[in-house]
């Protein structure tokens, strides 16, 4: 039965812009300050206050538009969306309606069936509302207006995704862009990047759209996939039972893995949008757009190409690094600040270093070892002072102590033994002590070679330079 149905998904993604100040008030916009400590007279909706656009937010929105090959219309206009709620102090949200800052654009997503183009209808600027806190006091709700007026762009896609995976792929593409552009901190937990999904189903082959439901406020890639799949199943179940899908807004409950109705279309507000008379239409000049082009970063696709062709990094490794802006920053810093070969760097970063982060459940931007210290360790590795095995131990020590690699190597005498006379002496001693094994090797038992390597490593606690050790062993064993 299920093969007969097809999902149609459109997304509205809210991206909080990482500007110093709010969209219209000049008040600081940082997250996590004590309640109502970042509230200007305008943010509180005091009589007589007026909005003044934050130029940075305009620039960020234009950069986003350019990153999805969108048209940037020459004039953009703010509009008021009117509704009453205590965390909306002015009684309206300043948003955009007919003249958004970003027009039609598109991007490509990877699907099981190959590349797919998803069109972007528009992206507009708007201010966020404050926060209502309902569980703090028994009889009252608390309002925190720190968030009120912080800048968002809302990215609206065409309903062109046909399964939850494609929706996630689209969301990731947008996420990658805004984080690489540096216009969003990408913090999902803090709500810097959240998504509403419009989901409908229809019999495969049908061209008209089914009735849709909107799932609100999804803020994790995992939840959005589950929520969409769950919602589609719910709709199919209804349709197969001969019932209708009601156009409504639904909330996803991650704990129960289900969606529940929030309000139906009939209950929906009439927002009475109209152009904000406190602001004149804003002209976006060609020069302004041109200036923003200079701020466009290298996006993952071209990074991957450069990493593989110019730096000789494996395609898989290049992809993982290039898609994560925090890792990109770390990696490119260490490329510039260490003498290590790029492929060694990439392998060590995705191997030992990532394992260490996982062990401490930390993301790379919260690493106890910064890119500078990491680069120091890479240099020791590249120079052959330590082996990768010892380097791994040093990482642990660096994490715990905050010391540099060089300091740890020095203090614990962990440097590799690359002194050939010292190694030769050890090898001579070994050959003298194990005449039977020597004889066995010389009579053709090649496997015995590893025994000698192992013994040397044991004697040196792993500090013998492995390449040199093998070379010297071969010389001694084969030439007598």
């Amino acid at each position, binding site marked *: 039965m299920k093969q007969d149905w097809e999902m149609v998904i459109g997304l509205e993604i809210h991206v909080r812009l990482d500007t110093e100040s709010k969209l219209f008030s000049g008040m600081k916009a940082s997250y996590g300050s004590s309640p109502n400590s970042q509230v200007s*007279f305008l943010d509180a909706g005091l*009589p*007589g206050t007026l909005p003044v656009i934050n130029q940075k937010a305009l620039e960020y929105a234009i950069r986003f538009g350019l990153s999805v090959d969108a048209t940037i219309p020459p004039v953009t206009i703010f509009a008021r969306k*009117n509704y009453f709620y205590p965390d909306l*102090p*002015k*009684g309206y949200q300043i948003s955009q309606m007919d003249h958004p800052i970003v027009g039609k654009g598109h991007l490509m997503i990877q699907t099981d069936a190959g590349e797919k183009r998803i069109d972007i209808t528009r992206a507009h600027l708007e201010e966020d509302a404050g926060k209502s806190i309902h569980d703090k006091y028994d009889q009252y709700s608390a309002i925190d207006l720190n968030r009120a007026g912080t800048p968002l762009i809302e990215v609206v896609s065409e309903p062109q995704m046909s399964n939850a995976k494609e929706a996630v792929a689209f969301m990731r593409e947008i996420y990658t862009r805004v984080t690489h552009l540096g216009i969003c901190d990408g913090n999902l937990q803090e709500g810097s990047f959240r998504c509403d999904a419009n989901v409908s189903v229809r019999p495969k082959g049908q061209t008209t759209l089914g009735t849709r439901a909107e799932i609100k406020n999804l803020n994790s890639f995992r939840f959005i996939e589950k929520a969409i799949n769950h919602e589609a199943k719910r709709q199919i179940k209804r349709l197969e039972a001969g019932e209708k899908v009601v156009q409504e807004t639904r909330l996803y409950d991650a704990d129960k893995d289900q969606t529940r109705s929030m309000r139906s279309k009939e209950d929906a507000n009439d927002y009475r949008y109209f152009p904000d008379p406190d602001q004149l239409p804003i002209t976006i000049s060609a020069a302004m757009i041109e200036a923003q082009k200079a701020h466009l970063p290298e996006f993952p696709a071209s990074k991957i190409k450069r990493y593989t062709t110019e730096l000789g990094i494996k395609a898989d490794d290049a992809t993982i690094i290039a898609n994560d802006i925090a890792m990109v920053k770390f990696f490119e810093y260490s490329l510039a600040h260490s003498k290590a070969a790029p492929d060694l760097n990439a392998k060590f970063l995705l191997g030992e270093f990532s394992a260490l982060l996982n062990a401490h459940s930390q993301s790379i931007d919260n690493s106890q070892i910064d890119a500078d210290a990491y680069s120091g360790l890479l240099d020791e590795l590249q120079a052959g002072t330590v082996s990768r095995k010892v380097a791994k131990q040093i990482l642990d020590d660096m994490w715990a102590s905050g010391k540099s690699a060089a300091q740890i190597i020095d203090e614990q005498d962990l440097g590799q033994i690359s002194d050939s006379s010292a190694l030769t002496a050890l090898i001579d001693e070994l050959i003298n002590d194990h005449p039977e094994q020597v004889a066995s090797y010389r009579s053709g038992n090649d496997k015995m070679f590893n025994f000698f390597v192992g013994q040397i490593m044991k004697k040196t606690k792993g500090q013998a330079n492995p390449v040199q050790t093998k070379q010297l062993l071969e010389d001694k064993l084969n030439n007598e």
Partner: protein
Amino acid sequence: MINLTIRQMAGLLAEKSISVQELNGVFYDRCRAHNASTNALITLNDELNAAEILHAQQAIDVGNHWLAGIPLVHKDLFCTQGIKTTCGSNMLANFISPYNATVVDRLGQAGMVSLGKANMDEFAMGSSNEHSAFGPVGNPWDLTRVPGGSSGGSAAAVAARMVPVATGSDTGGSIRQPAALCGITGIKPSYGRVSRYGMVAFASSLDQAGVMAVSADDCALVLSAMSGHDPLDSTSAHASTWAWEKPQDTELKDLKVGVTRAWIDALEDPDIKQRTWQAIEQLQDQGAQIIDIELPHADLAVSAYYVLAPAECSSNLSRFDGVRFGHQAEGVNDLESLYRQSRTEGFGEEVKKRIMIGAWALSSGYYDAYYLQAQKVRRLISNDFKQAFAQVDVIACPVSPETAFEHGAKADGVSMYQADQFTLPASLAGLPCLSMPIGFSQGQNGRLPIGLQLVGRYFDEQTILSVADKYQQTTDHHLQLPEAFQ
């Protein structure tokens, strides 16, 4: 002393014939003496502000500025730090703003001394000052009659010489009409000339702060100090700083004055009609060339305005919800009741009516037919003015079709709206316009002031003020005082 122009008072202050304290004392005493009968002020300061007096006296002592030491009152929709800003509403009866409006700051910096806050129609909605939660205002020429509105308190205070100057705001005529009805001079500058920051909004795309005073020269001096770009108001123009150049003579040679003959001929009040033509002839006598013009879409102004202004007000007044400031209803148990009850108790009937009209005009299904249509009409009216100003430098026309009417005479709201017909076109076009006294009626209603409106090109306050100043150099209508207030 009380019937002097700003320049005359500034002269006395400069030559130390009188101190700032003494001058302000005279007007402060008049405020105390006459507020009971006029009700022109909602708030009269408990005493003269010593810091302002000192600041003004120091400015004078170092030879600064015409305005230093000149007393004034602000219309009670300009936010004043530490002093109540009621907007004539129960909603804000006890509201004290934590900041000053830009206009208040600029005039304070210029050394003007604020004596209090003027009465007004609630949230500037009305043309009679009868829609004030703090009671109606008496017109100093006849206390049984209205002073006009919404800046009725400001107009009455100046007419009674309780102060020589008052600030006002004009959305659809709220400076010009009360100025006309009270026999004083009042200017609404071009939209964007003066910052709206801290002026509680009624209809943001129309609201402009302006000045009401005895003469055009007084208005111009104060407007010069008020004008200029304000980074806190995105609609204030960048090139809005302006300095008044007072004309040296009374010649109006080379000036082309446009006249909307049809408007004047249609006036029902014979006194207004006669005085209007007489004033136009006076301009002609001074050398002006009179040219008939037409504003073909101007008769749609009332309909368009009473969609657009309520639409904006319905949104602007949403913030008065009883949650953070202003009137909060008691004894309610849920959010919706808090909103409903606070707004029901806090707003007066006229405000509620306009919020309803505006919300309806913006609502889904009606937006195109009303709001959008009204915007198109607004554009057409603007274009009418553009065409007219290709031929003329100034347009002279009536301010109000009637002189001051008795309190309660107009129970019918629509007829009050229709009386705005001559002031609304220039408001919708954002043009500078003023009202100046041109004489008095003599009929059965007694001796009541009549005004003439002068409309100028966008950002050309200089020309209309010059014409008014030259007219006032040769006439004395603006210097007449009501008997009870001499």
